[in-house]
């Protein structure tokens, strides 16, 4: 769990998930100051949390990632998570809908991508 720092936060963009009614939206906490959204300080940690089956598997500071890394889940529905400097995504998943893969890169606080069939969640806290 990242404790957010008051003055150095970027914006929080997060994906809304569909319900039975298949809606789609996003949200981030709003700021009256548009500029402050983009003034995330260099080196400020950007913590990605990877959860599977309701348990936290790992937490990684994306700003400390220097080269491509992969996290593979081989049991049940196979999933591969890719980490690069400052970003993370579902690279591959054995689920039928591929919603998680199509979510693309997570780059900001509040971003979340979910693979419901495999119960895998990637989020930037």
């Amino acid at each position, binding site marked *: *769990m990242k404790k957010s720092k008051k003055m150095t936060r970027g914006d929080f963009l997060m994906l*809304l998930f569909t319900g039975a*009614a298949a809606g*789609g939206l*996003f949200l981030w906490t709003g700021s009256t100051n548009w500029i402050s959204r983009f003034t995330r300080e260099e080196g400020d940690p950007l913590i990605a949390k990877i959860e599977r089956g309701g348990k936290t598997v790992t937490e990684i500071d994306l700003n400390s990632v220097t080269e491509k890394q992969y996290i593979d889940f081989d049991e049940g529905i196979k999933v591969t998570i890719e980490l690069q400097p400052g970003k993370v995504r579902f690279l591959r998943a054995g689920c039928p809908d591929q919603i998680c893969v199509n979510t693309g*890169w997570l780059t900001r606080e509040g*971003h979340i991508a979910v693979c419901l069939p495999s119960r895998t969640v990637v989020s930037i806290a």
Partner: protein
Amino acid sequence: MRKITWSIVVMLLITACSNETQEQDYQRYSTNFLDAFDTVTQVIGYARSEEEFYEYAHEIKERFWEFHKLYDKYNEYEDINNIMTINNNAGIQPVEVDQEIIDIILFSKEWYERTHGKMNIALGSLIEIWDETMTLASEKPEQAALPLMEKLKAASIYTNIDDVIVDEEAMTVFLAEENMSIDLGAIAKGYAAEIVGKEMIEKGFTSGVIISGGNWKVLGPPKDLERDHWTVGVQNPEKPYALNEEAILERVKLEEKSLDTSGDYQRYVMIDNLRVHHIIHPETLMPGNYHRGVTVLAKDAAVTEYLATELFILSYDEGRALIDSLDEIEALWVMEDNTVKATEGMKDRLQR
């Protein structure tokens, strides 16, 4: 005179300082949980400590699961009668249920009367056919086929909401027709979010949001020095899952209230060039296709979720007239060509 001016200035300063101190005491936290209403629920909020935040989040999770069990039509649970119990006893006998079930049914009946009655919790038999169609199409695409119209017509006979008989005294629900069933899929999350959200506000969680499968219950504005509102982005249907800036069609400012979207672009399958999804038009018996998505803003999360479905299966003109006739409810439509229409009150909240 001068004295008075000074005292006003001092008061303002004190107010400003105390606000700042208060907000500095708060930190932002977020978490998520799966399973309730078969979706992911995010809780984001500001609290004085991690412990405080997780106490709220844990309780939200527990309460959501309680509502899930009551409103579930696919599973029964020990020691409770739920929607599945009611459906299994259709045409047989009234089922004794908890107040939460009585209330959501009465709520749905009330709004059925107040609207054009397109959204209908008694469409279970029809939705079941389309559910099977979608499941088959996604699991065995080579066998994908639209359901036969005779089959849909036969099922549609048993969708009269007046045959959902509620006895408030005896606390029972009875489905008068054997072949009918209740489906709360288009209302359950929002209804639960409204009740649980209110409970959390009473407990002191007044700066946060509960986001459950497209339904947003805002508990109160962010306690943050830099921001005084939340902003919800309406997704571009052409980029249905992506997180990047191009995937956001509009941005809606929110301090409180609730927001919900119904759309055809996230959970769907293509069969015979037709976009098949869960929102079924009760007269054509086919998936609604007036617009790509409708977003509704209202105070009550149950109302937003109910109306998002109702508006999705009304033409823009009918839906617009309905919203204009209701107080303090706003809406935004994403049309077939991706253009956006919105009520005046919604336009005021869009960030341009």
